[in-house]
């Protein structure tokens, strides 16, 4: 069963008075438990596509249906609340809250979901242990390496028990070892807990691990291959 469907998705925006067609008629669907990489060169439209699927950006035309809901119709706090409950995000620049410890960063999302304190603490600890940071829970992001920060970001994305995780160039700032560690963690979570991951990337190491590769260029889907 499809958990995400995009129908004739278009995105046009103006940049210095010039109209840019970032996405041109994309039709895609994703099923629960996929481990998908969206690949393409810089400026091909992968981040714009991911932003629209994540409800961060509105399509100029077309529909995005997630869990049966056309998210283009959601506005303001309803859309924010939808993101909070259904989607996990992992960003290229980690983007943890610098004043909170690793554990507090993971707890933060559950705090927004108003989960009970006991549950928050337990889940944050379990998730950090799962990403191999059981001994770094009380460290602030500035005391963690890039790879460790990104693992906290993955734990944070999982904390809200989302339907799927969108990861925008998650390995772009990581060295080889950190990349390998992170990919192993995400692959394990995908296989063992059936968590859906959708990456935008041009990192071959990620592409090699993906079981579905969507190639886009100039805002159009060039190929969609399953391994």
């Amino acid at each position: 069963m499809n958990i995400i469907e995009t129908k004739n998705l278009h995105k046009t925006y103006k940049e210095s008075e010039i109209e840019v067609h970032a996405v041109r008629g994309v039709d895609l669907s994703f099923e629960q438990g996929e481990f998908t990489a969206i690949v393409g060169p810089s400026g091909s439209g992968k981040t714009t596509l991911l932003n629209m699927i994540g409800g961060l950006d509105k399509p100029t035309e077309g529909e995005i249906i997630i869990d049966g809901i056309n998210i283009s119709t959601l506005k303001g706090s309803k859309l924010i609340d939808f993101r909070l409950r259904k989607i996990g995000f992992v960003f290229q620049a980690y983007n943890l809250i610098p004043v909170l410890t690793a554990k507090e960063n993971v707890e933060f999302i559950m705090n927004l979901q108003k989960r009970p304190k006991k549950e928050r603490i337990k889940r944050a600890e379990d998730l950090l242990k799962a990403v191999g940071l059981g001994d770094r829970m009380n460290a602030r992001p500035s005391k963690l390496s890039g790879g460790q920060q990104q693992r906290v970001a993955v734990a944070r994305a999982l904390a809200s028990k989302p339907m799927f995780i969108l990861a925008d160039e998650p390995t772009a700032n990581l060295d080889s070892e950190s990349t390998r560690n992170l990919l192993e963690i995400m692959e394990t979570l995908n296989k063992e807990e059936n968590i859906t991951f959708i990456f935008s990337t041009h990192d071959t190491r990620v592409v090699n691990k993906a079981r579905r590769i969507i190639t886009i260029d100039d805002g159009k889907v060039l190929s969609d291959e399953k391994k």
Partner: protein
Amino acid sequence: MIIKVAWRNIWRNKRRTLITAASVFFAVFFGLIMRSIQIGTFGNITDNLVSSYSGHLQIHKKGYSDEKILNNSFNSDKSLINKLKTLKHVKYVVPRLESFALASSGEQTKGCFVTGISPDEENSMTKLSEKLTSGKYLLKNDKGALIGDKLASFLKIGINDTIVLIGQGYHSVSAAGKYPVRGILHFPSPKLNSSLAYISLKEARKLYSAENKLTGIAVLLDSDKNTSSIKAEIKNIINLNEYEVRDWGEIMPELKELIQSKSVSSYVMLGLLYMIVGFGMLGTIIMMIAERKKEFGLLVSVGMKKTKLALTVFTETVFLGFTGLLAGFIVSLPIILYYSVHPIYLGGKIAEMYEKNGFEPVILFSSDTGYIIAQFIIVFIILIVASVYPVIKILNLNPVKAVRD
């Protein structure tokens, strides 16, 4: 969580937080100390002048304020004095007969202001006996005089020497009398020292041929706060066709104007001070917002409602300002409280300057809660207004643009 995040966030850039908090601290500190000294010192000057001479209110015959002559005196009315004494907040009611005369001794002559007083009642209000530097205070129907020390030295006379007063009495009758000097007075004001002479009310009436007459009744209240209300009450009990009632501001308009002009200048100073602080705060907030735009975008992206984010940042700015505000109060209040009980007595040339202007050379701090609460509220409002900017910015935030920027 909001409070924890907000508190930690303000310490992300310690130096900037400390500079911003310090600007609020110094504004609050200087603002409070400045107002405290001004209110305290002017309050002291007013209290001194009011309690040592004018009283809070004075009752005269209608027209006396325009033409201060004996012909504008009125018959002493015991029932009126008794009515005044029964009013709430009235401490003392003091009858007087005042006029000008030439004071003379030997070959020296000088114009002076003669006040006929009821010695005991006058002393209970003005504590005139405490201003004696030599001699004795007047007895009830004393035939002697008390004079200012500068007048005494000009006339080259001392205790038990005779002073001659020559002038014009009631209905232009010529007035002349001689009085042994019972005591020499010293006032903070050199002007008063060189121009005041006191004799008993009985002798003044005899001198000016003004039998049973008074030129005024001075009324001292328990507090200046009640001046307006008691003035209105007195207006109700006197015949306004016959009498007039004036407050100390009308009796000493120069003092009232001086206090008002100083208050205006201090408000301008305070306004400038707080404007600088307000803009300083706003500058910090704008910088903070610009630096963290991406972070805000990401927080909204992962599901933090804009209202919650705005509340967090609002809490941060309030914390930032409050740190300075509370520090300002914590440091300045003990100083204010200490100096309100232990005034600073000035010496040297500054003291002379004060005395020349007729003021007691003392700096007194006021611990009146009114201006302290007012300053707290003003700074608090500035903080709230400055904190509105990030709230508006966050509520209009476009997360994708914020992240991309």
